[in-house]
């Protein structure tokens, strides 16, 4: 069913939280979204996850921030209207919008369902659409997106705990499948136990692998084992424990977002082992070539995931009851959440409650 709203040409009034400058401090912000087009889906936002890249972009860390900025690309909501050409969604559906809102659909990457690698891809916030409109994200009450970039959220998953699947989840799922890190019984390592890391542990266990967590925080061990099901936990500063892991792992997902040396982790890989980077440290990382050559090992990278595979991941999560471990806060507390995130004080993803906004 699809219908065009009678007020189709009126900009949509939205309430959100935006930063005005590189302090990253957010405050209430009224703005408008363009009227929904024929292919667009309009949703009332219930929840939006806080991604570490929101923090980076709010503070201008990557040198490309435009203000005012409404962040948020882990958006879950309910469809309130659909454009006349929309076929995949109907009013009342629980849906999600992730990191992208546009791609060219006319290139090799788009053809392969890898919109994230399209040269013309547009991010959900802090970017510009082809028509010149600045994109604003999901720390807001209403989201409008082309149906190609909207996904169904399985009804059995709690909406807030499902939200971070749209970035953290797919960022881990995509490389695990692409690089074959889903072999039952294989030995899998996860470096860094944050938003991305805890999803890697969950998927690792779901794929039947033996999971070792590497972390700088001994305090995370109990939960890693008991709550997430990790089989082993190594404090990366413990040289002896690291040495004991030498040549033992088939694959590693590395989520660290600060500068570090890859070599101690490469040493834990067996020959033909693979490491995939998903965190984005600003500085370069050190690699000793002999580490790669002497064992035919590889260091790869991966960026979120395409739309088709995001749908597949959500389906898998729905079937296997996989969601994220979240701390949900009213959106008005977004600044507090950011401060705590800056100190890594979260188990393991903050989710902002947009329903808490008094209209």
């Amino acid at each position, binding site marked *: 069913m699809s219908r065009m709203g009678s007020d189709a040409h009126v900009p949509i009034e939205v309430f959100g939280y935006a930063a005005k400058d590189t302090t990253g401090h957010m405050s209430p912000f009224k703005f408008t979204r363009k009227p929904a087009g024929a292919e667009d889906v309009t949703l009332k936002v219930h929840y939006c996850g806080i991604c570490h890249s929101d923090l980076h972009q709010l503070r201008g860390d990557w040198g490309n921030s435009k203000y005012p900025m409404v962040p948020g690309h882990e958006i879950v909501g309910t469809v309130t209207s659909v454009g006349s050409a929309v076929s995949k969604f109907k009013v009342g559906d629980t849906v999600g919008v992730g990191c992208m809102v546009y791609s060219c659909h006319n290139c*090799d*990457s788009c053809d392969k369902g*890898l919109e994230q*690698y399209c040269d013309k891809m547009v991010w959900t916030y802090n970017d510009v659409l082809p028509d010149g409109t600045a994109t604003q994200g999901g720390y807001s009450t209403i989201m409008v997106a082309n149906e190609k970039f909207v996904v169904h959220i399985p009804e059995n998953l709690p909406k807030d705990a499902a939200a971070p699947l749209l970035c953290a989840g797919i960022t881990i799922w995509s*490389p695990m499948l*692409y690089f074959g890190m889903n072999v039952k019984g294989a030995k899998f390592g996860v470096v860094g136990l944050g938003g991305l890391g805890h999803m890697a542990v969950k998927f690792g266990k779901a794929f039947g692998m033996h999971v070792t967590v590497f972390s700088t925080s001994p305090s995370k061990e109990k939960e890693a084992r008991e709550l997430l099901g990790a089989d082993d936990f190594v404090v990366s500063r413990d040289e002896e424990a690291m040495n004991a892991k030498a040549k033992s792992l088939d694959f590693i997902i590395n989520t660290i977002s600060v500068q570090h*040396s*890859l*070599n101690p982790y490469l040493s834990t890989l067996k*020959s*033909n082992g*693979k490491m995939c*980077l*998903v*965190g*984005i*440290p600003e500085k*370069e*990382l*050190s*690699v*000793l*070539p*002999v*580490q*790669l*050559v*002497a*064992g*035919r*090992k*590889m*260091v*790869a*990278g*991966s*960026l979120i995931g395409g739309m088709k595979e995001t749908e597949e991941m959500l389906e898998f999560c729905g079937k296997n009851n996989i969601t994220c471990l979240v701390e949900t806060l009213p959106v008005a507390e977004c600044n507090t959440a950011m401060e705590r995130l800056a100190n890594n004080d979260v188990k393991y993803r903050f989710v902002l409650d947009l329903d808490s906004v008094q209209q």
Partner: protein
Amino acid sequence: MGESGVVETLGWAAQDKSGHLAPFKFTRRATGPHDVKMKVTYCGICHSDLHQIRNDWRGSVFPMVPGHEVVGVVKEVGSEVDDFKVGQLIGVGCMVHSCHSCESCDNGLEQFCPKVVWTYNSVDTDGTPTYGGYSGELVCNRKFVLRMPENLPPDAAAPLLCAGITVYSPMKHFGMTEKGKSFGLVGLGGLGHMAVKFAKAFGLKVTIFSTSPAKEKEARGILGADEFILSTDKEKMKAAEKTIDYIIDTVSAVHTLDDYLALLKTNGKIILVGVPESPLQLSPTSVIFGRRFVGGSLIGGVAETQEMLDFCGKNNITCMIEKIPMSYVNTAMERLQKNDVKYRFVIDIENTLTSE
């Protein structure tokens, strides 16, 4: 057939990390039931010979007789050997033993076996040091002896045993064989020129990235490269971004990986086969944006070395060499240090190995 006693052999060895090579008499083991004894005719000089005689990688044990691109003829076979005949043209590469009971060996990747024994500067199963192919004779377990194609000149074929397999193996393993795709080669030396030859044989479009403008004419004219780009030419490098499907990187000096990663299309790969001693820096965004990867590769297993040799025989592929007498070897090492060779030195052991 039949076993002989321990044999005195003449070779050239380095006695210390000055790397100076000179005549050296030593003994080879008696030909055991599973061994093949080879009269060495030619031996290629690999850059790793230079590294090891100078103890660049630490772990060098002297006296050291280098050489792991060894070609010759069968002189004698052990009683259990039925797949090699006296007089047959054979080769021995970088390995002379592995455990044959581990995952790597089972997968034909003996080079990753924890118990692998290298052709020289290693310790054999009987506790004796291994001495390589800068010598008159070699005794080797038949599992590590290779059949050299009869139609290839043995001197020009010798470097296939290390340089050849070192690029052939990753090119096959990582799928760098799809006709029409775009292949990049970084560093045009012994390894590099073989990569170009194989790439052309696989029907790839070849772009060479080099720091030496002088190499362009030959790269295009003799090796058949389609493009040649000076890596210092920022404009040309920028124009080449996101145009290459896969890259083999042979450079053994420190260099900027990010510059070459930028050349790759989405899902592109760069495989290191050179081993710079110092760490390289990698910007995560170079691999994350575009889902690229950096890998490494080490020579190749025995079965794939044989496969490569057969492929070279069928397609008439050999190396471009400069044949030298044994007495020239120290000068050759000096020139190799300066990259002054097109593209591999090969020692004429048969005719020039003397105790002088």
